[in-house]
């Protein structure tokens, strides 16, 4: 109770750092967010360094492979989540969608053992995209908050998964060896899953950065009403973002099946908050408008590495969650600091320029 230091009035009413865009300013802001990403990368580097000094085996090829393998699925989910979050929405149903798709993939192989692997993955993405489209349609057409809708759909998709599974578990033996080996095999020493995740990050990053519709998502996230007035089809863009996020969750679900081989209806439970945490740690602003998929991917990598590092450093596993929580708080604190600096700097500039 002693933390109740006097709180300044009106502190809440701070200016949002969304200025009218001139080229110089945009470039400055962009540079600052690059700094933000370098910051996470540095934190990640430091963590790896400390762990490696303690136990050099941590930097061995198989160990790095394991970390990358562990992070891949979370990275893919975080990328999808970022696309939704920058448009000032959120998708809490990703864990349930992943679980549903993972189970569906297993069921597909049970029903048709000869299904080509590519087809199975595409089917997974498709099912995920359908789930995402349902979320998107509800959010965009009924004009209701995404947090509420996707929280509801979190329960619905999980319930459907349970009703379908009825206690059934799909084991590694039920799926083709080629599919399973894709989940763990490597190419040039790097896991195939990591390549897929990297491709997803690059494509999504390019889309958000270089395509008109991608950039419009940021505009929507910064100021939805202004975006609507300036002629951006807000509903359609938001719908699209949810479809992308669902599709990513579907891809992650299919890859989950390949990697873990054992699937029941509880797969992916509680994953949604971890995904949001990865995006937030990666510098994606929770109320939209800023952040990049590269940051989110680094955030996911950092969270995964912490888990592995603590195990390697033989730190009591009970500390892991507390550390992750502290990290999230540190990350958003840092973002706030950066945003304030941006705001000050821009204010300074405009007064000079005037």
């Amino acid at each position: 109770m002693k933390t109740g230091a006097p709180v300044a009035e009106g502190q809440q009413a701070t200016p949002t750092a969304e200025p009218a865009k001139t080229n110089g300013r945009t470039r400055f802001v962009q540079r600052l967010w690059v700094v933000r990403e370098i910051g996470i990368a540095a934190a990640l580097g430091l963590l790896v360094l400390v762990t490696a000094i303690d136990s050099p085996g941590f930097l061995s090829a198989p160990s790095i492979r394991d970390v990358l393998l562990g992070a891949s699925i979370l990275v893919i989910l975080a990328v999808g989540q970022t696309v939704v979050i920058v448009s000032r929405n959120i998708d809490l149903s990703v864990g349930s969608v992943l679980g549903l798709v993972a189970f569906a993939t297993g069921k597909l192989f049970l029903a048709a053992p000869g299904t080509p692997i590519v087809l199975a993955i595409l089917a997974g993405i498709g099912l995920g995209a359908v789930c995402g489209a349902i979320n998107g349609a509800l959010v965009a057409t009924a004009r209701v908050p995404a947090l509420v809708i996707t929280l509801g759909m979190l329960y619905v998709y999980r319930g459907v998964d349970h009703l379908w599974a009825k206690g059934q578990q799909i084991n590694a033996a039920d799926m083709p060896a080629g599919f399973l080996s894709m989940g763990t095999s490597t190419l040039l020493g790097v896991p195939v899953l990591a390549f897929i995740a990297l491709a997803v990050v690059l494509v999504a990053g390019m889309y958000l950065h270089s395509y008109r519709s991608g950039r419009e998502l940021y505009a929507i996230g910064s100021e939805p009403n202004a975006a609507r007035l300036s002629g951006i089809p807000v509903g359609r863009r938001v719908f699209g973002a949810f479809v992308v996020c669902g599709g990513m969750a579907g891809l992650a679900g299919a890859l989950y099946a390949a990697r873990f081989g054992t699937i029941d209806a509880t797969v992916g439970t509680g994953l949604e908050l971890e995904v949001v945490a990865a995006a937030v740690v990666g510098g994606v602003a929770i109320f939209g408008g800023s952040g990049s998929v590269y940051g989110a991917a680094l955030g996911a990598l950092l969270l995964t590495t912490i888990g592995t590092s603590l195990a390697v450093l033989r730190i009591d596993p009970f500390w892991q969650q507390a550390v992750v929580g502290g990290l999230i708080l540190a990350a958003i604190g840092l973002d706030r600091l950066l945003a304030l600096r941006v705001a000050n700097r821009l204010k300074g500039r405009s007064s000079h320029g005037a």
Partner: protein
Amino acid sequence: MSLRSRGVRIGVIATAVTAVLLAAGCGGTTRGSENGGGEPAASTGTANPDAPLKEGLSVAFLPKQINNPYFTVAGGGGEDAVAEFNGEYKEVGPSEASASSQVSYINTLTQQQTDVIATSANDPNAICGALNTARQSGAKVVTFDSDTNPECRDVFISQATAEGIAHVQVEMIAEQIGGKGKIAVLSATPNATNQNEWIELMKEELEKQEYSDIDLVTVAYGDDDDQKSFQETQGLLRSYPDLKGIVSPTTVGLAAAARYLSGSQYQGKVALTGLGTPNQMRQFVKDGTVEKFALWKPSDLGYLAAYAGAALASGQITGEQGQTFEAGKLGEYTIGENGVIVLGPPTVFEKSNIDEFDF
């Protein structure tokens, strides 16, 4: 209505502190000032070993978690048994393994006047009160797999003696690593009653002279979560590069560890054993990742639990030590100390016999 003024804030803190001091001054309830026991669990009536099994008994299985394949199989055994004595079987339970949800289901079963509740406890204490309420309103309570406190149930069906389980696992791992080297345990959740008991007994077993060269270096927790168990296995081999063997006394952990080993450079070099189901482990036994592992038959466990419940509800037994009853195809069982009934020694599965089992 601003609460900012310092006076208000100090007032709030002062009130709170005063409350603490007042309470302390009154000499409150401290640990050990009371015996803390629950309601006495009186087993009523006397046993009549010759009483016939009643027909139409309602028997409910309440596993730790519904949709868990292990409990699905155990429930299947229970269903077979209930069909044999012409009762009504049902399985209910939460989809997440939490004690609080189990309490809610036990209360529901009490309302429904269920004759026999067969449950596996997520927490030995948390469901105690609810079970006792159920018993007061006439239900017989059988626990299986994971026990509650003995005063909250009539009998407990133990999958094997804890000593037997610890013994067979230590024996298997010692044999596979040649009686020498570092080993680790990959357990389920840190709270799991049975896991912790087995691990303690394994440690005692390892104290023996014949195992003096074996060093149990750590216990890792995979939370019975496939992904977490997989990662913990990675972490173990990373932290202890000279690890010779892993024992995982949980089906989820064993399967996850096996899958990690089979795709890594450690396959065949690091021994792995523990408790697992043949269907999950078949592939890994055949590809040489795992030499042998053990388990009781979960279906027999459920089968015995159902028969024990029926015997209780029919008055054949009351849960006292030394009483005996017939459990269908499994034959005669005797109640041991504290109302524990032991299913029998675990079955060891290896390449030569694994194809005879399907669960």
